[in-house]
C-alpha cells in the first residue's frame, strides 16, 4: 500500500515535470528524459564523478569535524551544567544566524580552496549536532543515575553506561539533521565559492545555458543526500532497536 503510494507520487511528480517542460514554464526548461540523458552523459564523461569526489571530500571533512567536535562538546555541556548555560547562548545564536552570511568571512580567513568549503559545511552542521547531544544529556532519567549510583558506579561508568546510551537517540537524530544541513552548506559554499565540485558544475552549466546538465547535477546532489540520510536512518534503527 505504502509502496504503491510512493511509486504513485514519483510518477505524478514526473508527469508534472514533463508537463512543465512541454508548456514550457520557463526558457529552456529541461524535460525529465533530457535531464536523465544529461545525467548519463555527465557520468560517462567523468565530470560528475570527479565533482562528486571533490564535494564529498569537503563534506566528509566538514561534517566529520562537526560530529567529532559537536558530540563531545554537547555531552560536556550537558554533564557540566555551568558550561552548558554559558555556551548555550552562543549555540542559539549560531543556530539562528543565516549561516550563508559567514561565507565571505570564511573566504577572507581561509581563502578559496577545498578547506573553505569544509569550514562552511562545518558551520552549517556543527551547531545542530552539538545542540542535540546537549539535549540528549538532559534527557537522562535521574532515576537511572540514582540506580547506578546505588550500585556504587564510578563517574566514568555513569557516563558510559547511563548518560551515553540515554543520549544516543538524540545524538543520532542530531547527526542525521546535521548531515542534511551539511549538504545545504556544501552546495551553498560551492555555489558562492564556485571553483569546486558539484556547485561549480551547477554554476558552469547554468552559465552555458545547459539547463539539462544543471538539473542533472542538482538531481544527483539530491540523490546523494537521500542515500546518505537513508544509510544513517538504517544505522539508527539498528542501534535503537529497543525503542520499537
Amino acid at each position, binding site marked *: 500500500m505504502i509502496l504503491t503510494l510512493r511509486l504513485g507520487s514519483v510518477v505524478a511528480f514526473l508527469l508534472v515535470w514533463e508537463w512543465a517542460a512541454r508548456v514550457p514554464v520557463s526558457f529552456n526548461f529541461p524535460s525529465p528524459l533530457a535531464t536523465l540523458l544529461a545525467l548519463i552523459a555527465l557520468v560517462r564523461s567523468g565530470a560528475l564523478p570527479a565533482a562528486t569526489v571533490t564535494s564529498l571530500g569537503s563534506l566528509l571533512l566538514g561534517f566529520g569535524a562537526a560530529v567529532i567536535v559537536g558530540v563531545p562538546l554537547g555531552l560536556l555541556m550537558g554533564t557540566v551544567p555551568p558550561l552548558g548555560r554559558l555556551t548555550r547562548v552562543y549555540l542559539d545564536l549560531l543556530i539562528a544566524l543565516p549561516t550563508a552570511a559567514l561565507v565571505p568571512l570564511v573566504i577572507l580567513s581561509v581563502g578559496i580552496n577545498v578547506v573553505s568549503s569544509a569550514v562552511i559545511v562545518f558551520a552549517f552542521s556543527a551547531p545542530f549536532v552539538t545542540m542535540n547531544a546537549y539535549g540528549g544529556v538532559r534527557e537522562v532519567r535521574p532515576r537511572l543515575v540514582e540506580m547506578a549510583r*546505588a550500585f*556504587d*558506579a564510578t563517574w566514568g561508568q555513569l557516563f558510559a553506561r547511563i548518560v551515553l*546510551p540515554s543520549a*544516543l537517540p538524540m545524538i543520532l537524530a542530531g547527526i542525521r539533521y546535521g548531515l542534511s544541513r551539511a549538504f545545504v552548506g556544501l552546495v551553498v559554499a560551492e555555489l558562492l565559492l564556485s571553483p569546486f565540485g558539484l556547485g561549480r558544475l551547477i554554476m558552469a552549466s547554468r552559465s552555458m545555458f545547459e539547463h539539462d546538465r544543471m538539473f542533472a547535477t542538482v538531481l544527483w546532489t539530491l540523490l546523494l543526500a537521500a542515500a546518505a540520510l537513508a544509510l544513517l536512518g538504517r544505522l539508527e534503527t539498528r542501534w535503537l532497536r*529497543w*525503542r520499537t
Partner: protein
Amino acid sequence: MADVMTAELAPIDRGVPSPSVGIAVESVSKAFGTVTALADVTVRVAAGEFVTLIGPSGCGKTTLLKIIAGLVLPDGGRVLVDGRPVTGPRRECSLVFQDFALLPWATVQRNVEFGLLLRGARAGERAAIARRYVTKVGLAGFEDAYPAQLSGGMQQRVGLARALAVDPRVLLMDEPFASIDEQTRRLFQDDLLALWSEERKTVVFVTHSMEEAIYLSDRVVVLSPRPGRVHRVLDVPLPRPREATDVRATVEFTRLVDNLWKILRKLQ
C-alpha cells in the same frame, strides 16, 4: 558466598542489640531546606529480618531507605550496616525501585547483569549469574526481551533479579509493588517471600499498603509525618512460611491489619 550465608542465618534476636545486627539506624535526622524529613529516627534490623516501613505521605520513609542505601547522607546520627558506618553507596545493599529503573536499551539479561558489570565481573560469570536469577524470579525465556515489551509486574521481577544478582546482604525495596495490579502483586508477594526464605537477605521494605506490610514482615515500623519519627514498632507473630498457607484468611491477620489501621488513622 558461603560465609555470607552463615552470617545471615544467625538466629534472629529481635529487639535486643547484638553484634549480628544487620542494620542500625541511630538517631538519624535529615532536613531538606527548611523541611525536616526525619527527626531522631532509631531503627534496628536484625540480620535476616524482614522489616517494613509504613506511614502517611511525607513521613520520610523513602528518605530513610535512601539514607540506609548511602544515596542520601544524614544531617545527624549515623547508619551502621554490619557494624560499619555508611558513608556512601555500598556493596552490601541492593535497591529495588518503585518505577523499576530498568535500562530501556538493554535486554532483560543485560539489565540483570548491570550491577555485576559495574562491579567488574567477567562476561561469562555475569551471564551465568544473571541467567540463574532471571530463572529464579520466573522470567526464564524472556532473557532477550526489552523492558518495554514486559508488563509492570515482569519489569519489577527484572528489578528484583538485578538487585539479587550482586548477592547483597541487605535488600532495600522502595514501594516495589505500588505500580503493579492487585492480582500480580499477590503472586509477586508470595514469590518474594519464597525467594527471601531461600536467600535469607535482610530486607527493609517501604510500602503504603497495610495488608502488604503485615503479610510480608517480621516487624512493621510506623513512621509519623513532618517530621518523620518512629511512632510505633509492631511485631507480626504470624507463622512462616506464609506463602504456603492461607494466612490472609486468618482472624489473626485481619486483627493485625486492623490494629495497624487504627494506629495509622490517628496519624493522618
